[in-house]
């Protein structure tokens, strides 16, 4: 079949190939190490990296970041950028923790209401983001960056720098109860991913994200209310950040001001490495899943083979640049014809 291995298809699948490559390269490192130590029989199944325990560890650490990255995926699909995730995650996490404790402190009571409340807080922050960006005509990166700082400050104001512990065993079951070796939070994340995938592919809103990102003027000329789409996008992203906050609390049982720290770089890296184009219109939530996995496989694998953490950051940074260069080239291909 001619034209099967075109540059386009190759680039489309590049993130998946990178992920597979990474999943193989770390065990090989392990094997060569073992060889050097004089082991005689070496099997892939012996790999500590590929053990179920380790894969579950990767899945757990990736879960909150995946939630956040899903949110920012939609924003980047529209050709905008949202940098408010760190503040939003902190506020939703802290807000959730306080509400949870105040309402009874266990999921078996009315405290379950704290979960929708956290998502609502996320949506509200997203709404403000969107309105500031659209109505005051402030570039999205600036509007959201500012809102992010407001959020971090607000979280600090709420906690006064303290940690808020959420020790309800029912809520912590997210982490502690495992089905088939993976904790419940991984399944919750998977369900949420499916929901986002449904929104992306099956709803008007999802289609509108692509239209706005692929050709904003055209979307307007086709009668789309572009401003409304943008604001809804930021709200949806806010809900995703709220999910991220919940998962982060579920993971460590603590909500504090720094709960949201580091999400910005990791989530945007994941989206870009997954193949979603920074100018919008190309990519989607499945790309983001692959991107998040790449990022966390690198993090984990480097720990397993014993490389220092500063090398991890360097590798991720280079990966981002490579991903952008590759996808940029894809764009100019469609221009040059």
């Amino acid at each position: 079949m001619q034209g099967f291995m075109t540059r386009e298809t190759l680039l489309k699948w590049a993130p998946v190939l990178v992920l597979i490559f990474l999943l193989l390269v770390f065990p090989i490192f392990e094997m060569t190490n073992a060889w050097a130590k004089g082991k005689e029989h070496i099997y892939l199944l012996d790999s500590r990296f590929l053990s179920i325990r380790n894969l579950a560890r990767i899945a757990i650490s990736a879960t909150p970041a995946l939630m956040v990255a899903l949110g920012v995926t939609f924003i980047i699909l529209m050709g905008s950028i949202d940098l408010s995730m760190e503040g939003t995650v902190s506020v939703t996490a802290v807000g959730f923790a306080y509400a949870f404790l105040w309402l009874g402190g266990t999921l078996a009571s009315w405290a379950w209401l704290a979960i929708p409340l956290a998502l609502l807080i996320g949506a509200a922050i997203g709404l403000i983001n969107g309105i500031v960006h659209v109505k005051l005509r402030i570039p999205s990166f600036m509007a959201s960056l500012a809102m992010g700082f407001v959020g971090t400050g607000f979280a600090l104001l709420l906690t006064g720098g303290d940690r808020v512990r959420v020790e309800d065993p029912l809520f912590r079951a997210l982490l502690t109860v495992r089905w088939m070796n993976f904790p419940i939070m991984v399944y919750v994340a998977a369900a949420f991913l499916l929901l986002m995938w449904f929104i992306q592919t099956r709803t008007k809103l999802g289609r509108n994200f692509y239209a706005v990102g692929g050709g904003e003027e055209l979307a307007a000329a086709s009668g789309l209310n572009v401003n409304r789409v943008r604001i809804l996008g930021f709200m949806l992203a806010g809900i995703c950040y709220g999910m991220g906050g919940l998962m982060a609390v579920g993971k460590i049982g603590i909500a504090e001001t720094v709960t949201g720290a580091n999400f910005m770089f990791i989530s945007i890296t994941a989206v870009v490495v997954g193949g979603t184009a920074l100018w919008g219109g190309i990519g989607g939530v499945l790309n983001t899943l692959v991107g998040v996995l790449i990022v966390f496989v690198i993090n984990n694998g480097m720990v397993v083979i014993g490389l220092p953490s500063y090398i991890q950051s360097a590798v991720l940074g280079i990966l981002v640049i490579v991903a952008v260069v590759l996808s940029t080239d894809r764009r100019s291909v469609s221009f040059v014809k």
Partner: protein
Amino acid sequence: MYELINVDKRFPGVHALKAVDFKVNRGEIVGLVGENGAGKSTLMKVIYGSYQPDGGDITIDGTKVRFQNPRQAMDHGIGMVFQEQSLITNLTVMENIFLGFEQQFVSFGVINWRKMADAARAQLAKVKLDIDPSTKTSQLSFAQRQLVELAKVLTLEERIDGDLVILLDEPTSVLASEEVELLFQIVRDLTSRASFIFVSHRMEEVLELSDRIYVMKDGEVVDVVEHDKADKESIQHKMVGREVDKEYYREQKQKPYDGDRVLLSVDGLGFAGRFADVSFDLHAGEVLCLVGTEGSGREAILRTVFGIDRPDTGSVTVKDQKITRFSAQNGVTMGIGYLPRERKVEGIVAGMNVYENMTLSQMGNYASAGILRIGEERALAEDQVARLSIKTPDIFKDCGGLSGGNQQKVVLAKWRSGGSEILLMDHPTRGLDIGAKEDVYDMIREMSDEGVGIILVADTLEEAIGLSHNIIVLKDGEVQKRFTGAPGSKPSLYDLVHHMI
């Protein structure tokens, strides 16, 4: 002195320049006229080095030259004053004049601003412009900017040996009449320093200023007229002078429209600086053509009727409902469809596939509670692809990868299947090959039969005449003349050109 001999230029599907001979003598002002698409801009781009000819020679004082880019042309004394002004408005006048050539004022890495200001003043004196060279360009009037642009090109005089040739592309289009007079005076005075090539849609100005006039048509120079022997009428005849092929434009399929059903009524519509006092009715099954030169207000009228721009005066009434909210969204709701000229920018979303593009303007019809009924979307797309014989492997193909003609069909399918009864088409056949053009003509006739009203800005005058029931000729934003065009009694090209320029 500067001469093009037998120059040829081809683009895919178009023979843009056919064996053109063109000559500029020292100190001469040469006019260049022709319809849209006659090859003027291609010729200019060849002259200032933006395009390389496929055949023929360019000579300066008998020596063969070849320019790879405009910079090389400049080094040979060819300068261009752009229609869309190329000054950077947040820089000062002198910075603009010497943009890219600051090195001469630099010592030890620092710019000597006083030296640059003095040099800039000397340039400005050439065009008799008495302004402080450190003024921000944004504070100048359009006429002043035009002169600064000219002064910038005249710096070539100091930089290179040999003679200058300066192209003026529509320099008068944004100027008031006394400013035009001033510009002409300056150009005449400057003939001691340079030769000029003057391109304009305004025939009177070309006749007044030029020593010789080249008349272009279909990529050929059809005549060269001396200043003394030039008269407007004969030049206009030469610019058009060809018969419309009735078959080609589907004239036999043109049926009378329904004069009782007014779909759209425009009354006294005006938009400051674009057009004024435009009124017309559009009936069911009618094709109404807006004809005029570039910038005559045709496109602006379409955009206003659709709702993208809000008019300053007058009203638009769609199906007996007066429009109060001007937005594209409202236009779509009222059943108006818009085919913009830039298909890539405003026509189709590249990256979205065929069926997604088709339902873009009518997603509400294919969704319940925000959830899309994708099966129905696909069925619609399959149906339209078959009906309009859109050439695509399947409906999942990225629209950006389709040919221009098929993209246009997708856009038409989008509006028609969405139930638009009024279609505004801006150059629907631009950039299409002949077969695809004929497909579009067929589609226009079919839509007329179904009672759709179409306002068309055609790519050529022939197209406008061939397709239309009624024609409105515009000039500088004002209605000049109306023609009716029933088959057999259509106006001639000359009738239209006469009122256009």
